[in-house]
């Protein structure tokens, strides 16, 4: 466990000591802020974070890959992976450590947005339910997105490739529901269940359904598991 901590702590230090991460954080705040105020133009604006959540889930399609692309691709490029894999640590400790580091950065980024609801509570009388559940959904969604980014970063030593592929996968998962209407019957149900947006929608509405929690946790676990196996397989290639 100490090694997981060590890996995570090292990556967290890199995140917070690196302009790239701040740029990512800045863009996140700028875009989500834009979506947050979008509703103010309406004659009767709604005191909710619905727009913010919409914007956040879209921008995370780009930002989660940007946060994770470096994590393993760079180790492979620099050759430091040789050091990691010959140290007495297990492959899962490397992956989990890196994932936790990216999750910590994501959480701190999300925490910076907490002043949106504070503003709402201060100036209006919003329904608190959807705000809490929305944040829970956002964290779960973000965690799943990060795990996809970790996998693509494990598979290549090229950060750009890692970024493009995971952003592509996230885009597909996000807009899968739109495609569900094109096919019918069983396939429509399947695509709907795989798609991320349909699972996020309930959180946005203030509904906390264990089915959706389970979905995002499974996606996270699945991609982390495949990442660990991919790292292991690196030894055999």
């Amino acid at each position: 466990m100490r090694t997981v901590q060590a890996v995570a702590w090292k990556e967290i230090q890199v995140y917070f000591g690196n302009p790239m991460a701040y740029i990512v954080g800045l863009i996140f705040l700028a875009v989500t802020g834009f979506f947050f105020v979008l509703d103010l133009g309406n004659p009767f604006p709604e005191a909710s974070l619905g727009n913010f959540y919409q914007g956040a889930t879209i921008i995370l399609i780009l930002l989660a890959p940007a946060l994770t692309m470096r994590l393993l691709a760079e180790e492979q490029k620099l050759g430091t992976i040789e050091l990691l894999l010959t140290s007495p640590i297990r492959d899962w400790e490397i992956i989990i450590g890196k994932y936790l580091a990216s999750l910590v950065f994501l959480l701190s980024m999300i925490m910076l947005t907490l002043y949106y609801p504070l503003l709402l509570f201060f100036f209006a009388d919003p329904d608190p339910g959807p705000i809490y559940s929305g944040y829970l959904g956002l964290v779960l969604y973000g965690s799943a997105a990060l795990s996809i980014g970790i996998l693509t970063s494990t598979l290549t030593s090229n950060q750009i490739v890692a970024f493009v592929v995971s952003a592509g996968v996230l885009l597909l998962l996000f807009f899968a529901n739109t495609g569900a209407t094109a096919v019918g019957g069983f396939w429509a149900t399947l695509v709907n269940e795989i798609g991320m947006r349909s699972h996020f929608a309930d959180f946005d509405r203030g509904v906390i359904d264990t089915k959706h929690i389970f979905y995002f946790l499974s996606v996270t676990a699945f991609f982390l598991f495949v990442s660990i196996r991919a790292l292991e397989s690196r030894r055999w290639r």
Partner: protein
Amino acid sequence: MTSELNADVLNEDVMIQASGLTHYYGPQPAIEDVNFRVKRGEVLGFLGPNGAGKTTTMRIITGFMPPTQGKVTLGGYDVVEQSLQARRKVGYLPETVPLYTEMSVASYLNYMGTLRGMEPKRIKLRISEVIDVCRLGDYRKTIIGKLSKGFRQRVGIAQAILHEPEVLVMDEPTIGIDPIQVVETRKLIQDLGKQQTVVLSSHILPEVSMICGRVLIIHQGRIVAEDTPDNLAQRLQGVDQLQVEVGGPPSEVLPALQRVKGVTEVTHRRQQNRDVYVVKVQQGQDLRDEISRAVISSGWSLLNLQQVGMSLEDIFLRLTTQEELG
């Protein structure tokens, strides 16, 4: 044979035992049936031209990748089956020094220590010690990316010895650093070799002779010679094999060649209607003179006489036999 092997594995003094190592990248084997043994406290050098399979061998010993076939035990632990235990015993300096360029020397060493499961107190103590040993004193807080290549190499060595590993594996430890630093690095490795088992690779002959107690020469994935540096140098003097082409009846030529003093073995074969004899000669003797005389004095014609490129010599010719600059 098998029982002998087992006895050796049990022997406390054997630190690394590699048997039948073969590794394929694609269809071509990078190494093929490599066997060797390293005793505790020994300094073993892998000598071979670039691409001979040195790095592959090192990567297998350190558990970075498993061999396609064969087995390595390190301190009694199988590097594939009991990988974690084996990896605990190794300090490794890969060919391209693996450094996190954005970290400072001290925090990098601290991170490596934690990954090796060292206690924080011991890490602190050892960092001071290795920084002394590697003479990095003034650069403790320097960001690694700003260090020169020679200093980066020292940081690489520092991380490899930080946890006082029983085996130190170094892949081309002096490649690409300037001559003065090369001398210092060699001195450092010699000092380390007094306390621990060291396996290193190099393509520079004098370097290996200087540092190592025993040398394995590896060429095209196979170990072609194994000896002390002095003995190897001796074996290189003179010719060991001659290929002779004689115009004469083989039934008479063969015994005549065998009668030449110093010849140990003669084999004959027909090659495109010509009679070719391969003459093995006692080590260190040059019998070209005697053989040509024996052939001509018997009235046969000597069509060809050439030293068969003894594999070892070939390889040595490809090695850098002189100190190169840069």
